[in-house]
């Protein structure tokens, strides 16, 4: 079978593109780094890919607000293509800055298409934090995981965060309760590092195929990336690997 094709979207200020592509390759994907100009100028097409990854970084310096300028660009230049991409059953993952982009472009949570229902704002501490956090994969105990990216992941996973604007804020109580009702909350922090409402670290859209998360799964695919591997023993794979594997396996099965 052909390897699922992953587009890792980059632009000025993207900086987790290489390791994200690497993680997908380790999981059996064929990952390609593509600059947004190549899409906008139609030198490349989203149609040729099955997974879209928007990696971490500081796109356009996070000027104005984190992820805002890329979100704006996607809205004006790629809106239809991206909608078609999602509607055709393909997968999207936004990590850190990529999550901020998806939220600010109105793609996540996506309860009412196109409207901005949440934001990611400054950490309560007011500054950038690089720290490892324990994440609860919500719903796993009830086996109701809606998100295709986290299927079969048991209980907790350990991933680092590295952001200054990671505080998840839903527009209002209605949005929050809908997120819960729809099982769209994918990850919760065990020890909330940034003040996110309801400890939310990652959410998916109503289809479960579009995932956005602040922590970095691509920074924990190798055993040596764990901050305590010298104490706890060296594992072959890190906790984040399963997310990439799920994405690739899903495409292999379905498409």
């Amino acid at each position: 079978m052909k390897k699922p094709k992953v587009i890792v979207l980059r632009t000025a200020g993207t900086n987790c593109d290489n390791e994200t592509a690497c993680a997908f390759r380790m999981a059996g994907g064929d990952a390609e780094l593509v600059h947004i100009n190549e899409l906008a100028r139609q030198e490349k097409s989203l149609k040729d890919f099955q997974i879209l990854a928007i990696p971490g970084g500081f796109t356009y310096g996070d000027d104005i607000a984190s992820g805002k300028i890329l979100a704006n660009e996607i809205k004006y230049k790629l809106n239809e293509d991206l909608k078609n991409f999602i509607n055709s059953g393909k997968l999207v993952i936004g990590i850190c800055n990529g999550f901020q982009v998806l939220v600010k472009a109105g793609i996540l949570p996506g309860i009412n298409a196109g409207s901005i229902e949440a934001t990611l704002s400054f950490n309560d501490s007011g500054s950038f934090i690089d720290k490892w956090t324990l994440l609860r994969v919500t719903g796993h105990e009830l086996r109701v995981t809606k998100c295709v990216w986290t299927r079969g992941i048991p209980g907790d996973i350990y991933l680092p965060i590295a952001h200054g604007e990671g505080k998840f804020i839903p527009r209002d109580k209605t949005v929050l309760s809908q997120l819960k009702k729809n099982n769209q909350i994918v990850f919760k922090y065990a020890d909330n590092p940034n003040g996110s409402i309801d400890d939310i670290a990652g959410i998916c859209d109503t289809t479960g195929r579009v995932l956005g998360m602040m922590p970095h799964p691509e920074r924990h695919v190798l055993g040596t990336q764990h901050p305590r591997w010298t104490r706890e023993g060296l594992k072959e794979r890190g906790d984040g690997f399963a997310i990439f594997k799920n994405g690739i396996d899903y495409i292999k099965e379905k498409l």
Partner: protein
Amino acid sequence: MVNNVEWKIEIRNRKGVFDPLGNGIKKNIKDLDISGVRHVNVSQVFIISGDITESDAKRIAGELLADPITEEYILYHERRSTNNERRIVEIAYNPGVMDPVEESARKAIRDMGIYGVKSLKTERKYIIEGNITDEDFKNICEKLLYNKVIQHVAISHKPKTASLGGGYKFKLVTVDIIGADDKKLMKISKSGQLFLNLREMREIKKYFRKLGKNPTDCELETIAQTWSEHCNHKTFRGIIEYKEEGKTRIIDNLLKNTIMKVTNELKKPWCVSVFKDNAGIIRFDEDDNICFKVETHNHPSALEPYGGAGTGIGGVIRDILGVGMAAKPIMNTDVFCFGLPDTPRKKVPKGMLHPKRIMKGVVSGVRDYGNRMGIPTANGAVLFDERYTGNPLVYCGTVGIMPKDKSFKSARKGDLIVAVGGRTGRDGIHGATFSSGELTHESETVSGGAVQIGNPITEKKLTDTLLKARDRNLYTAITDCGAGGFSSAVGEMGQELGAEVDLEKAPLKYQGLSYTEIWISEAQERMILSVPRENLKELMSVFKKEDVEAVVLGCFASNKRLKLRYNGNVVCDLDMGFLHDGVPRFERKAVWSKTIHAEPKKKSANNFTRDLMKILSSWNVASKEWVIRQYDHEVQGQSVLKPLVGIKNDGPGDASVIRPKFSSKKGIIISNGINPRYGLVDPYWMAASSIDEALRQIIAVGGSLNKTALLDNFCWGNTDKPDRLGSLVRASMGCYAIAKAYGVPFISGKDSLNNEYSVHGESIAIPGTLLISAISVMDDVTKAITMDMKEEGNLIYVIGETKDEMGGSHYNLINNSVGNNAPRVDAVKGLKIFKKMSEAAGQGLLRACHDCSEGGIAAALAEMAFSGGFGADIRLKEAPCDVKRNNVILFSESNTRFIAEVRKENRKKFENHMKGVSMGMIGRVTGKKDLVIYGLNGEKVIDAGIDELKEAWQKPLRW
């Protein structure tokens, strides 16, 4: 007809939204001892002008600038109101200072289909509520909210931009130098901020007299840049008459006779390029080489900490981009020296910022630049001493990796000179010469232009595209525009060829720059390439694809002349030979004599728990977690040992390890050694100790000396003064002796002299500060070791001899003295210890390992215990030490010592392996969470809970 309207859009938080920025400022106001502030609100102001309708302005504000969930916008004509309860101030950038948001915000507005924007400026608006006086308000503004070096209070509705718009009318300026007497020569040097001395000015006069003409301003500036200490290292390469203990010797080129001599004599086959390029290059594996450079950015950081540190890191990254044919930056290291954070305000010299503000500014500058560049800042150190109050030190280092065949470059005759990256502005004029002079209280006004704000995204774009162009072999040479701007970059690349440049071709940030300003501007994020004509089209398309500007400025010649034109007028025509070799060599006197310091008072008490706590709480030893967490130290996914380790990820790791390739176990270890306090006793042993420290950290994490190289970074006072130069010479001699004996070569280095601050005519020098940075190739990163104690019942060893070497120690520091026996290095024994420990790590015999440095064995044990979450029972009488004094064994900072944790079952194997090395099994790891140390007579000399010790260590810098 095109309208030109100005819209002012204020973006503020919605009611009820928590504002962490305002909250942070409120906290900082409290630090200023100003009470009464109830609330601080920060909002962002955008001033947009152009052909913009009101509905466009509303779209921009509502859809782009304001977050629909947390913020709201106001589009209005401001009425400024001030009363005692609510004060408002708006801070704008000074004309000429880069506003990083401008470019990206304008792009976003274009993306929306709105094309009429002609200018976009941002301001910060602060609303301070509470009962404070006018004086308080002024203090808050000046001490916290803005820095007049780069910003001003926007008084009128219109921001202060008008003065930049003016055009420039060409007029060739010459400087009358051939008719000038000595007094006049020095006046020219001083008023032109050339920082050239009389001998140099005379030499220039002689040269132009021979030519029978006066130099243009541009020619004189070019010479000053090229001859600056910053670019030329005149002191290290000069002739020094050195006197020590009555004996005098002549040192002809200190660099060649010490630092470079080590490398030349060791002749390591894996050293690829040393002391030639921007950075030293060593072999990594069959395919790639790695390079390492550490720079200093002291003076700009003193005046504008945020911008200074940011451009410092930006600059050293460009150094790496400019090594060979360009390397990919993969890791940053930063070392800072500040005044004491609790310095009383009235003790801060006039014109200087408070050390705490400098530190916060520097840390956020490095954070915002390094994080945005996507380069992990994974190693560093922060030191404090009151003598850094007027002159902080900011060392920024970067490691790069490059394919083997991209390690060398050479521009060819006829190649085009292409500038890529950022545009040229009036920022950073005279940085190279400014950094070669002393700071005074006037520096902020005279040299403010030398300080800039960087734009990391411009540099990130440049990095991404440059590496693509490199891999397609589109250019023959590359140099960064650092100090001296185009002047240094083109001058350096064309040294053997000659170059012709048309200055009007340089893309400018705004109009109005003179030809000389274009030539010497140190505007950030620019590189120069030499491009064969046939590659130009392809090269341009690589940059254009990702919106990076590239422009042909001229070409390399073959006549060894530097010829500059402005719209066809020749403004500079210099002989490369004179420019690069014409600088008269320095002849200087240097003296070193030992200073006798007071010894600490003998104490009768035999309980040292309090001393240990004090050492752990001392500024230098205390946890730097507040700093480290603000840096992204894991981007690129390569980290193997992070700066913080242990059961709660918060213990002080010895060195950082990264694996640059996911598919390979080969790694890179980076460490640093710095201890200016030993230099107060003897700079020779300070240098020796710094080398030992950097190397033992490499060993402590499981590395070896086999493929280990060093960088030297000297930050010294004014070396025109014989005592300052004498200590520099002595430190250099220490570098030679110990590096040679350990068999580790220097591959690159840097010196920053004139680190003095004058107050009322009296000059205060920093302590001579030598940073030794080490880089080492590790064959298998899965053999790496951390310093945290790991399992109850394991045995604890001390390796290496403890001597009565308390001079410059932290024990003496907390007892208010310096002392006289600085730690020495016995490299013969040391080498054996390093080798044995490295082998033990390779065989998996070490469960934990930590080097002994500040605070000696006691501090090392405490750190290992609280990082691991275990206690330990320790008996001092088992530690190898000739001096039978508890405080010496506990706190002496003798070199080449380790504490190792070994599993019981490995005891025999480990002890057999270590035969021939001084070592003692001093105790074991316990589950009791107490560190208990028994003295020579079996009495308890330290008894403390590990949580208590950890709190002492974490509290001081938990900001």
